[in-house]
């Protein structure tokens, strides 16, 4: 048991964050200019709107070895493109639910709404997500396991 805990501490997860250009990416910028730190293993991909994020991007990230994927967009109702994040909300609600149905840990995926003014929140969200994933451990279920039975 002791060994497991130490091992988990060494593990630094790889996190892919998709951020919409208008709110969350700006929120991340604000977190930066406010010097609100979060772990370096969070890497942000800028998309015009959270509705640009195709489930395949999320799955691709897991396939390539990401341990957690988080999507950030404008708060519902504040979408720069009026309705984009409403679609995101439905798509991701269904997708994440489905992944969990297939046995993927529900904590591995997350959607958070972060406005351009919420630098503090962006940092808090990322810290929390990294903490969750670190506790959860490596992504084994959705990673690329090219293992064969017997041979």
């Amino acid at each position, binding site marked *: 048991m002791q060994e497991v805990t130490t091992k988990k501490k060494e593990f630094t997860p790889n996190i892919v964050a998709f951020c919409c250009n208008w709110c969350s990416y700006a929120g991340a910028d604000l977190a930066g200019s406010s010097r609100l730190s979060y772990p370096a293993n969070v890497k942000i991909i800028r998309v015009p709107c959270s509705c640009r994020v195709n489930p395949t991007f999320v799955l691709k990230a897991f396939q*390539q*070895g990401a341990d957690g994927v988080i999507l950030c967009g404008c708060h519902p109702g504040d979408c720069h493109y009026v309705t984009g994040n409403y679609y995101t909300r439905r798509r991701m609600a269904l997708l994440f639910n489905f992944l969990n149905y297939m046995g993927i840990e529900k904590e591995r995926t997350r959607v958070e709404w972060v406005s351009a003014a919420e630098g503090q929140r962006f940092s808090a969200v990322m810290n929390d997500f990294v903490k969750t994933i670190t506790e959860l451990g490596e992504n084994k279920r959705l990673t*690329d396991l*090219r293992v*064969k*039975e*017997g*041979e």
Partner: protein
Amino acid sequence: MLKIAKERLNELYAKINETMGLFMPIKKAGEVNYHVWGEGKEVSLETLKTVKSPKNMFFPQTENMMKFKTEGKNIEIVDVREKLAAAAEDKPFVMFGVKACDYKAIEVLDKVFLAEPVDTYYQIRRNAATIVTLACSKPEESCFCSVFGIDATAPQGDVTTWLDENYLYWQANTEKGENLTKLVETLFEKGGEAEVETQKANTQAILEKLPFANLDLSRFKPENLNELFDDTRWEEMSEACLGCGTCTFVCPTCQCFDIRDFKTNEGVIRYRCWDSCMYSDFTLMAHGNSHTTQMQRFRQRFMHKLVYYPSQNDGLYSCVGCGRCVNKCPQRLNIVKVIKTLGGNKND
């Protein structure tokens, strides 16, 4: 001839498994396929048609061929075959319970993969395998191996076995078979010739009654290639075809494959996997496709089995009459319908 009581089969499996890998029809998640034997596994020797045929053991659905590591502009190739060969040498394996049709299918595949230039991936696995066949005693309506001259009651292989209510009868045919026999001899007793003969006769009687026993192959000859190719009925035979790969993937002789690259976060893996001539992109090139319609793809498959392959291999058909496609085609199309439409029935 040797025999072993049915109740003691597990001992036999365990004994083989001590020094060799053992693959046999095992039920997992509701379906019977060749899996590694282990204590407590649900062995199903009687299953005539595993969903995936034994070809999977030599020509797996997917196998990694090599890895590429790229650093800047440079490439390093990691050949995975040495590992594969070492593993095969270290632990040769037994394929247990292979039916006559499936064994014949392995011969069909050998002609492709072991012909020069040899496919080394296949060869490594093939050499490591000792094949123990099992005679059929309860053929199904979809079986028609006899049409291709296969005797389901006396399959070939390194070892041939028969199974009745009480015993498994064992007869080694090759050196590999003898070696295996030596390994397990102590478990066996002598005898069984008479029982085997009775079973053979009974099965023969059923085989003759099977609905497809009289398919006529006489028209499927290389000299009829163009005539068969141009037959107008392909259109109607293929109209319900979905273009899926079920028939090709359950087929024990279909050997088409694709070679692809897969990017992982640690480098590129080049793998090969089964491919199907039924797929719309099978022959797709950047500047065209020689098979644009499903009819052409459908025709390719059956022409290959019944004409092209025999033409390249001294008349040997690359269909063994296992009937898997008869059972598994989602829309109920199959080679029997093709043979009947183009060739006819001997009794007609």
